[in-house]
């Protein structure tokens, strides 16, 4: 793991990048998100951790409307997230997402995967879209795989392509939903390195992960969620060394001692 200091966040405008106020969500009868309040400043890096079923994935999936919240308000870059399709489309252009299972399109090459959205959503000419794609493929350090199909790549390579694919849309926020949980151990490092490099460029990031080393290196804030609510949030130093809440202490002891 690199020991470089995280880059200083660019002078933030006072308006937060992402803001959740009093957000509640139910699945059928289950109350899965309880009174979530969260403000993410521009350039901030947030790591969200917690036991499974705590609602952390659900929460970030609400931010790009893959899940809908029933109560409360979500604002992304000044736009409110509602059922309004136009709003949703605009927000999804500014919010990138990396999935646990990559979700690359198997019938398209790596290059086509990355160029698809810029061509069809941002109406970029093909050549320009491919140039952008190659630029980001170089950034994630696999430009030589551009003509291959996802089925021919390893898990770590596929996830890096997935990151490049989201970056091609030039989003303002990147959401990561357990990006390394489905990878073999020797491939986790290459993906985390890319994510650290991304943080260095000043990207606003919300990351659900169990990789605590990454949290210590990169995060401005660590949030602990349990049973649908935010239990504790703090800077990494304070969070890991002086957890306040009983539940946080229990979780950290389980995760850091195995």
């Amino acid at each position, binding site marked *: 793991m690199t020991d470089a200091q995280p880059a200083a966040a660019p002078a933030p405008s006072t308006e937060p990048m992402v803001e959740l106020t009093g957000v509640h969500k139910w699945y*059928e009868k289950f*109350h899965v998100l*309880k009174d979530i309040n969260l403000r993410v400043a521009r350039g901030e890096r947030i790591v969200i951790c917690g036991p499974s079923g705590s609602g952390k994935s659900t929460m970030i999936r609400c931010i790009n409307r893959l899940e809908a919240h*029933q109560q409360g308000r979500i604002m992304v870059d000044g736009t409110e997230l509602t059922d309004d399709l136009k709003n949703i489309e605009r927000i999804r252009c500014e919010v990138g997402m990396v999935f646990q299972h990559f979700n690359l399109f198997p019938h398209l090459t790596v290059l086509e995967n990355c160029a698809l959205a810029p061509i069809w959503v941002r109406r970029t000419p093909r050549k320009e879209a491919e140039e952008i794609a190659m630029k980001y493929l170089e950034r994630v350090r696999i430009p030589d795989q551009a003509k291959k199909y996802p089925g021919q790549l390893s898990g770590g390579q596929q996830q890096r392509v997935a990151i490049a694919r989201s970056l091609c849309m030039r989003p303002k926020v990147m959401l990561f939903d357990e990006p390394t949980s489905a990878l073999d151990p020797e491939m986790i490092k290459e993906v985390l390195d890319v994510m650290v490099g991304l943080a260095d460029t000043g990207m606003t990031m919300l990351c659900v992960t169990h990789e605590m080393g990454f949290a210590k290196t990169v995060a401005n804030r660590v949030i602990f969620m349990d049973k649908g*609510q935010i239990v*504790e949030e*703090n800077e990494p130093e304070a969070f890991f060394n002086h957890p306040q*809440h009983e539940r*946080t202490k229990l979780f950290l002891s389980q995760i850091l001692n195995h």
Partner: protein
Amino acid sequence: MASSAPVLPDLPPPAASTGALGWLRRNLFDSPLNSALTLLVIYMLYLLVPPFVKWAFIDADWKGTKHEDCSRVGACWVFVRVHLNQFFYGFYPAVQQWRVNAALGLLVLLMAPLFVKGFPGKPWLALGTIFGYPVAAFYLLLGGRFGLAYVETSNWGGLSLTLVIAVVGMVAALPLGILLALGRRATHMPVLKALCVVFIEIVRGVPLITVLFMSSVMLPFFLPEGLNFDKLLRALIGVMMFASAYMAEVVRGGLQGVPKGQYEAAAALGLGFWRSTFLVTLPQALKLVIPGIVNTFIGLFKDTSLVLIIGLFDLLGTIQAANSDASWLGFSTEGYVFAACVYWVFCFSMSRYSQRLEKRLQTGHKH
């Protein structure tokens, strides 16, 4: 900056999203298009269902024995009741019908343990059923020995004939299909492989009706003069050929699904071709494709109805015959609805069973 929170209680969700109202909103009316569709479907059901129920149940005639007992307003189930014996036994003499019951009962008795989980010796039971039952059933139904009166096959008919054809077809198809599949996979014996491929592809590429025509019309020509073949036997030969070709493909799929390591391990242990096939690879292959085998049987069961075209009186054939009975004209609808119900009950239960089997076997095969 630290913060910590007390445990929040679970709140109930907002009213309009649960309960009956919420379910209705989510499932039937969640968009203008869906609401319009829901109303359209309800209207269609309103047009179709009440008249049918009225015809089939409310106005229907259930009691009676004669044609005049039927008013023409509703369905005349008297027609079905009067002919029920014929629909089941065909023209089998009434006195001897216990033999048909015995044959069927024997089949059920032999097959029942196969459905009981953990019953010992299932493979042996299955093998014994496949090879032993047809012989037993043959003598039971045909007679002429062991003190049983001889009943010509032309008197066999109805649902019992359908079952005979389906069961015999299936029972013969399994061993034949296995041999064909093994032959098709024998890459080191190209002549044998070619023969199997040609047989399978020809039989699968033509309609069943042409196979039946061939076996019932052409078979007598290929045999020495004077050797007369029973009509049912000719049809059975056609059905067996047809089913074995389809079964061969199903078994071949299973053999392909057995991991290569199994073949290698068996060979490494010194087992020759036949031993390793019957002890190692074939059992695994068959287990893999049990749903496929059941589906083939369902298809076969439906296809038995085609024998009416070559003059045999299976279930559909007896119903057709009853429809043309001069004293019961005009009730063809009731006849076909009855046939549809019987076939549907059989096929639906078998397909449900096959789906359950598939689910059970899939979860057991996670690797």
